[in-house]
């Protein structure tokens, strides 16, 4: 998500960056481009208008005009305003400190409620809670079955009473059930409904009044167009929602909805749902997202992902190796394998400062399936070759290709990738040293095992 938007915004801003002096015309031109790219990203029209107005006013202010690097100042303003639009800081879930917590999920048809219920349940379980899923979608055929399958796959019980009983009653019974079974969080899956369907919206209000949920989360498809705001406004006016989960974020939609929601309904986006696997639910960080949009990289998120996925000891060892530039193909392979644990690789690379959006990483594009070949190729090398890849000449390449059942081209491209990665790591090293005093302890503390 945001990749295209970020490309376009960066282009618009690039023209300003190099200039020593900015005229009002320069800014007007850039603002027009920014406006179009935001609109094409489905950001709400009104939000775009306000945004452009504020950025322009601030850009024409003395603080920018008198600065030595006015272009940079404008970038800074755009970043600040983007963050402002999306809201400051992450927004945590509220729990009942004494008794059972209720989360109610609602949204249009096909927004991804049932899947998100499963993901949220898994997350809560991982945090040591005892969640219960309640199947209140009695309308869509096989919705209950779907929730049961999802529940089973994350190992969370599902409470259901079939599709002949009113959702309000099911919700009420779910309360009793949770009490008896000792569950501490109940996630209510409701049927998808149109925000203009008064009867069904009233039903949600009734469920809300019955349960007094601690969170009412609106599920919103990241691909939604200008209508997103209307949907959020209506659900909010009926239910006073507490937050939004943006779904299908792994698509290539430019995610304008994310930019509009906060501004229009003043409710935070709490999570991003980014894939079909049950652990793909991410906390939303507006400031980091703004950085990502502007191609400034999202190092904090990579660090978190890395910390989740990597073995600390191995990482330390690797860091040592990096310092001595003693990074061989064995390390390369183990890094690739660990990176795989972090999630889709292109996603990760996008977050790296200076790499996101630029597409200059073509040599490094790693298809998950490629890993199988990579593994085979590296394992077909002798120990000596792995330690010192520079000795791999033409005839060795042929042998390795034959041994791994691949081709010389593949061996070549792997070696090239390895070189690229080595270069990239040098870059990280340099950054780490440059930023030792930085907010996250420099890249040295960032156990990045590339």
């Amino acid at each position, binding site marked *: 998500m945001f990749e295209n938007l970020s490309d376009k915004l960066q282009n618009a801003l690039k023209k300003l960056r190099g200039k020593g002096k900015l005229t009002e015309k320069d800014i007007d031109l850039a603002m027009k481009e920014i406006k*179009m790219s935001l*609109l*094409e*990203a*489905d950001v709400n*029209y009104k939000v775009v208008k306000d945004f452009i107005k504020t950025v322009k006013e601030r850009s024409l202010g003395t603080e920018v005009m008198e600065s030595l690097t006015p272009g940079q100042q404008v970038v800074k303003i755009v970043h600040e305003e983007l963050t402002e639009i999306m809201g400051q800081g992450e927004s945590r879930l509220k729990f009942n400190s004494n008794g059972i917590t209720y989360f109610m999920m609602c949204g*249009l*048809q*096909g*927004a*991804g409620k*049932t899947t998100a219920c499963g993901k949220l349940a898994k997350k809560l379980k991982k945090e040591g809670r005892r969640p219960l899923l309640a199947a209140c979608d009695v*309308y*869509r*055929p*096989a*919705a209950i*079955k*779907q*929730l*049961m*399958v*999802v529940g089973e*796959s994350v190992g969370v019980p599902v409470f259901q009473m079939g599709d002949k009983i009113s959702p309000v009653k099911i919700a009420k019974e779910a309360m009793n059930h949770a009490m008896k079974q000792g569950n501490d969080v109940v996630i209510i899956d409701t049927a998808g409904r*149109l*925000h*203009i369907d008064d009867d069904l919206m009233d039903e949600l209000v009734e469920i809300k009044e019955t349960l007094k949920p601690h969170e009412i989360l609106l599920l919103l*498809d990241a*691909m*939604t*167009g*200008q*209508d*997103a705001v*209307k*949907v959020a406004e209506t659900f909010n006016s009926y239910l006073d929602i507490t937050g939004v989960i943006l779904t*299908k974020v*792994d*698509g*290539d*939609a*430019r995610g*304008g*909805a994310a930019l509009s929601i906060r501004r229009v309904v003043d409710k935070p986006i709490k999570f991003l749902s980014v894939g*079909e696997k049950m652990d793909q639910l991410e906390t939303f960080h507006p400031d980091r997202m703004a950085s990502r949009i502007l191609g400034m990289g999202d190092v904090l998120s990579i660090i978190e992902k890395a910390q989740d996925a990597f073995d600390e000891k191995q990482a330390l060892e690797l860091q040592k190796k990096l310092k001595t530039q003693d990074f061989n193909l064995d390390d390369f392979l183990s890094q690739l394998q660990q990176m795989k644990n972090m999630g889709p690789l292109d996603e990760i690379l996008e977050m790296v400062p200076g790499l996101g959006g630029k597409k200059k990483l073509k040599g490094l594009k790693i*298809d998950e*399936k490629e890993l199988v070949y990579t593994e085979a190729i590296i394992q077909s090398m002798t120990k000596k070759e792995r330690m010192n890849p520079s000795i791999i000449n033409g005839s060795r390449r042929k042998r390795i290709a034959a041994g791994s059942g691949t081709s010389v081209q593949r061996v070549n491209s792997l070696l090239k990738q390895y070189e690229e990665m080595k270069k990239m790591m040098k870059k990280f090293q340099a950054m780490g040293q440059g930023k030792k005093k930085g907010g996250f302890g420099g890249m040295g503390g960032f156990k990045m095992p590339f």
Partner: protein
Amino acid sequence: MNKENKSFFAKLKEGLIKTKKNLTDQIEGVIFQHKKINDNFLDELEEILITSDMGVETTMDIIEYIKEETKKRKLEDTLEIKEIIKEYLINALKENERPDVTDKQRVILIVGVNGVGKTTSIGKIAYRLKQSGNKVIVAAADTFRAAAVDQLKEWCYRAGVDIIASEQGSDPGAVVFDAIQAAKARKADILICDTAGRLHNKKNLMKELSKIFKILDREFSEAHIDVYLVIDATTGQNGIVQAKMFKEACNINGLILTKLDGTAKGGIAFPIVNELKIPIKYVGVGEGIDDLQDFDAQDFVNAIFE
């Protein structure tokens, strides 16, 4: 207009009218506000068109068209603009209309991203085609999503058509293959294939779709193959990318526009039709089994503007 058409027209209109601030209200608003066609008027019009998800490009085309036509026809009064916009939209849609193939067996492959209403649409299409006297078989090739097969089974039961299904997690290509054999053996007129929702930027999933298409093409060469992309009317500009990628993977030749009963106007359909030169075949306006109908450009645009 026959009776069925009328009720559909009414339903569509109803769906589109529910929004209090619909396209036509807004357009009429600026029309009355401005009276004379000038830059300010066009600016505001542009804004309205963009908020209907038509996209920057289509909007600019429409504005250009208005400018040309007002010059050509020497129009000054804003009141005439509505007809010009309607004219433009109807032409754009009509240009790409194509009749269904009826002289041989037919396959309809239904594709789209997650949650747009593929399974529901299939239920309704199956019902519709069955009602008009066809023997229909449905292939449950969404073997990925939990309970998708059960959902489709329920729809097929309601529509009264046969379904070929395997269990969740099995190979969708194999299901399609079996369905082709069944369609041949039972001499079905139409085979409708459901597929799992997939985001168009997932390479492997798109490859899987190409494979399904190839199986149909190879194993059922005597049949005419239609591939319809289902687009949710609330979709924004991403719809264009979706359509392009699906076209690349499995050569879509028609659109199904769903969820028009919300407040979204489905403006995204226009740039897609424009860009890909494919027709809209069906529109969905509700959850009932008869809430999906053949697309008619005139009715559709009229419903937006009525």
